[in-house]
Every structure is written in structure tokens, then in C-alpha cells.
């Protein structure tokens, strides 16, 4: 198994390299440079040229790339054009916000979708299943942002149950007060994005259960005199949960790309919001760093999926 995992990690290296090259060229395509907005507009153009030359902006691309990568390894992702602070520190607390939102979303998402998938699979074609199918169809069909808008309109504006923006109330004080306020701000966006991400898991689980139910080995288990509910839990459900376990990584990946929209709708200060703010302000260093981080996390999510799969599936584990 360790060989499989190690090989899988090694596969990530070329992917990372290609990703970084891609991001590098994307960054090159963007207008502006580190001196934009930093230097007094009255500076002599010749002096500016000299500064740029000294900063290596006229070096051949590979040299610049190598320097850029070298800096990344040193933990230097550049300085924000606009805020004039290191990008890393800019991203750090935003990343934490996104992390909490994603974590809560994931927890809610699985705690909704697994029971729903089990109910639908167990009561295939009965009313329970049909109800889940309707839920599933709606969450699949509605574009996420439409769902968020309708949700915020109904629950935040009309009913006034949840705050419409921010990550914490400015009036919150004390440890518990702050935490409570944070949770209050985070819970609704988390529920909304959790509901919209259930589709895949519910569908996989339902299909898995429905398919496994008619497998011969289930008949064998019955013929051994294993009670019905044990056959379901021990044989059918366990085997159907396997592919779900590996979906974990991809769910995280999905949340990352979804963070942009949910954070916009709720004005939640996370990485997605930071990304959109940066693009609006033409803060290209921050943008580049964020794309790189997004890409890296996506790769990591996929790696996680594969590793989980290789641990839980004996057919991959033993080899």
C-alpha cells in the first residue's frame, strides 16, 4: 500500500510543475508589475527602468520562473500591489476563514447526504426514495448562486434569522461571545452550500446500495441466515460507502471553487472573496498566489481521495 501511496505522491510532482508553469505564464499575462502604484508617479522613467532591471523583470522567462519558484520555497509569495504587505500574511487569516466555512460545510453535507442516500437506496422506488430524488433533482438543477440568493432573500431578509454578511459581529466580545458570533455568521452559508453539494454523494450512495442489493454475495449472505438488517449494514452499506469515502477529497476541491460565490453572496472574508477583491483591484501578486494555492489544494484533495481509496479498498491495497 505504501508503494501505491508513494507512487501517487510522485505523480503529483510533474502535475505541480506544470501547474506552476501555467500559473507563472498566467501571471506574466497580467498587466502591471511590483512597482505599479508603489513608486511615486513622478519618478524618472529611466530610474524606474533601472529598478525594474535590477528586480530582474527583463531576465529571460526561465530565470524569472526559477527565481519565482525559489521564492515560493522560501515562503515568499510576493508583496501585494495594493496593500503593500506580504501576500502570505494577507492570505493567512482569510484562508482560516475559508477553512472553517469549508469544514462546517463538509460536516453538514455528509450528515445530510449519507442518511438521505441510505434512505433512498433502502426504500428504492418507494415514497421515501422519490422524496429524496426530488430533493436531489432540485439541488442538482439549481445553479448554486441562485440557490444562495433565494436562501439569503428568504431567511436573512424576509425572516431575518441570519446575518447577511461578515464573519463576526463587531460588537462581539470575549472568547465565547466571539465564537458564538462567528458560528452565527458561518452557519447559514455553510448550510446552504452543504445542501447544494449533497447531490453527488446522495446519488452515488443510492446507486451503490441499489446495485449492491442485487449482487450475488448479498444473496449468499441471506442464504447463510444473516438477519436482514445485518446484511444491509455489514454487506450492502459497507460496500457502498467505499466510493463515498474517496469522494472526500473531491468534495473539498469542489468547495474551494464554490467558495468564490458563497463568499461573494455573504460578503464573507475568505479566500474566494479575497480573490475577487484582488481581481477588481488588479492586485496581481495576490491573484497569482491565490491561483497557485487553489491549484495546490485541488491537487492535494485528489491525492487524498486516491490515498483513502487505496486504504479502504483491498483490491488496491494488496498489490
Amino acid at each position, binding site marked *: 500500500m505504501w508503494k501505491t501511496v508513494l507512487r501517487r505522491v510522485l505523480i503529483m510532482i510533474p*502535475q505541480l510543475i*506544470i*501547474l506552476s508553469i*501555467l500559473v507563472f505564464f*498566467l501571471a506574466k*499575462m*497580467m*498587466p502591471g508589475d511590483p512597482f505599479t502604484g508603489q513608486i511615486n508617479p513622478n519618478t524618472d522613467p529611466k530610474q524606474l527602468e533601472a529598478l525594474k532591471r535590477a528586480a530582474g523583470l527583463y531576465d529571460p522567462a526561465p530565470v524569472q520562473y526559477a527565481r519565482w519558484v525559489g521564492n515560493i520555497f522560501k515562503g515568499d509569495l510576493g508583496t501585494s500591489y495594493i496593500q503593500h504587505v506580504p501576500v502570505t500574511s494577507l492570505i493567512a487569516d482569510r484562508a482560516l476563514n475559508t477553512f472553517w466555512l469549508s469544514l462546517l460545510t463538509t460536516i453538514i453535507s455528509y450528515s445530510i447526504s449519507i442518511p438521505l442516500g441510505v434512505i433512498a437506496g433502502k426504500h428504492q422506488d418507494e415514497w421515501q426514495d422519490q422524496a429524496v430524488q426530488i430533493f436531489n*433533482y*432540485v439541488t*442538482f*438543477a*439549481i*445553479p*448554486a*448562486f*441562485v440557490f444562495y*440568493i*433565494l436562501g*439569503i*432573500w428568504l431567511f436573512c*431578509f424576509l425572516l431575518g434569522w441570519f446575518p*447577511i*454578511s461578515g464573519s463576526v459581529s463587531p460588537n462581539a466580545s470575549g472568547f465565547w461571545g466571539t465564537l458564538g458570533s462567528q458560528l452565527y455568521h458561518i452557519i447559514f452559508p455553510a448550510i446552504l452550500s452543504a445542501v447544494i453539494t449533497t447531490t453527488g454523494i446522495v446519488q452515488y450512495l443510492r446507486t451503490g446500495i441499489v446495485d449492491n442489493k442485487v449482487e450475488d454475495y448479498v444473496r449468499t449472505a441471506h442464504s447463510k441466515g444473516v438477519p436482514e438488517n445485518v446484511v444491509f449494514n455489514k454487506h450492502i452499506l459497507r460496500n457502498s460507502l467505499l466510493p463515498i469515502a474517496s469522494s472526500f477529497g473531491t468534495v473539498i*476541491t469542489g468547495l*474551494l*471553487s464554490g467558495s*468564490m*460565490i458563497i463568499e*461573494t*453572496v455573504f460578503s464573507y472574508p475568505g479566500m474566494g472573496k479575497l*480573490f*475577487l477583491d484582488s*481581481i*477588481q483591484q488588479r492586485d496581481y501578486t495576490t*491573484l497569482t498566489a*491565490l*491561483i497557485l494555492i*487553489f*491549484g495546490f489544494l*485541488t*491537487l492535494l484533495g*485528489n491525492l487524498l481521495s486516491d490515498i483513502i481509496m487505496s486504504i479502504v479498498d483491498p483490491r488496491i491495497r494488496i498489490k
Partner: protein
Amino acid sequence: MLKKNKTTSTEKAKKVQVSPPASSFRVVVREVVKDKKALTAFIVIVLILLLTFGGSLFLKSDKVTEANIIEAYTGWFTDGHILGTDDGGRDVLNLLIMGGRNSILIGLGVTAVCETVGLIVGLVSGYYGGYIDAVIMRIVDFVQVLPATPIEIVLVTVIPHYSPVTLVWIISIFGWTGTARYFRAFVLSQRGRDYVLASKTSGSSDLKIMFREVLPNIGSMLIIDVVLTIAGNIGIETSLSFIGYGLPPTVPSLGTLIGFANDPVNVVNRPWLWLPATILLLAISLSINYVGRALQRAGDARQRES
């Protein structure tokens, strides 16, 4: 004499009732007519198409998007604006019609590109297998792990002479991989079937086998995938427009209209700006998906039969 006998037997055969495995098109018609809810969904789609495509025939795009500050934020049913006006005094109904058409067109455009590319890549990868497949799948894997939305947004902002066509290409960069995977898996399962081998021994070329033997078996899958992908792609375009990085500002989109809801003032006080567009997009997404699901069920049922 012998010759004559043969022709008569052939003619007799022609009269015999034949029931081919229903063609993809027939499945569409039959399933949609049989399922009343799907029929309703289908009618909704037709109505929306009539409204948006038919309506936009009577509109001039530059007129629709022309700003007229004096008339800004007119409410519903006032001054001849059934759905009021936006911040630039533009008629929301006109924007809705044009935006609906544009969003659907982008969805169709992206689907056309992605399905074509995905189908060809899936066919080649699945049929040839081996190294060709391995290389193609590595590429697919890589494109799939790229963070699509951020890159799309950056491309939208950095590409010069940016137009709706550019947007179609940008979204398509990331859209073809799912389709390619889907068809590859199917072709891979067909490749092992003996009818492909039988065609080979019958002297048919690889190209002929791929397009004349394997492709017809994909037919209904393709239709289902196209229908569901259109809905998904409309979603992607409107999402991007919603956050301000989809269609150019001069080109109306449902996403842009819904984007008005990002301002709390609009949410509470000016629902005409975003609510109609939200409802229209909801109707489009739900009905297209419903038809897609109905087709999928039909396809599954047929697979079980054979």
C-alpha cells in the same frame, strides 16, 4: 426463375412489421410524450425559447443596453416598463429577453464545443487504449485538477478584445474533460465486445468501426449528456456573469441581472431587477434538467432490457 423468387421474397419481407431498437431521436419523442411532467418541462423550454429568441428578434441590442440615467430604477409596471428599469434606466424586460437568449446561446455554444471535443477524445482514447489512452487520460486528469473558476476569471480579465465567443472558448477549456471521460468509459466497455472484433475481421477500418459501429451505440447517451450539459453550462456562464466576470458588460446576461441581488438595497427594495431573471433561470435549469432526467431513466430502462 431463381432471381424472381428472390425478389418476391424480399418484397414480402419489406411488408413485415419491423421493430428496430428505437433510435435516439425516437426515444426522445416517446419518453417526453409518455411522461406528463417531462412533457410540461419540455413545453416550458419551448415557451422560454420562444420568449427569448423570438422576443429578441424585435429588439436591437445597442438600444437595449443604452443607458438612460433619467429613467433609472423605475418600478414594475411604470412608464411602459413592465419589469421596471435598472441603474442605467435600461428596460429590465428587454434585458431579460436578450440576457436569456445570450445565456442560452453561450450554454449551447460551450456544449457544442465540449461535446464534440469530448466525444472525439473519448472515442479515440477508449478505442485505441494503451499508450494513447494513458497519455490522453493524464491530460484529462490534469485539466480536471486545475482550479477552473479562478483561471476562468483571470482569463476573462486579461484577454484583450474579449467577446462572448471568447467566453465560450474559456469555459470550454475546462468543460470537455467530463464528457471525454464519460464516453471513454463507455467505448472502453464496447471495445471488448465481440461485435467490434467481428467488424475488424470483416475488414472494416478503425475509423469506420469507431464512427459507424461504436458511435451509433452512444447515440442516446450523447443526447442525455448534451441536455444535462447545456443546463450545467448555462449555470457556469450565469455564475461568472453574476460575480461580474462572465459576458462583457455591454452584453446582457441573466447572471448580470441576478447579480443586482449582491446589493442588499436591491434585494429588499428593487426585486424587479433580479427576481424575474432568477425565476427565468430557475425555470430554464429545472425544466432542462427534468427532461434530461426523463431521458436518462429511459436510457437506463433500455439498457436493462437488452
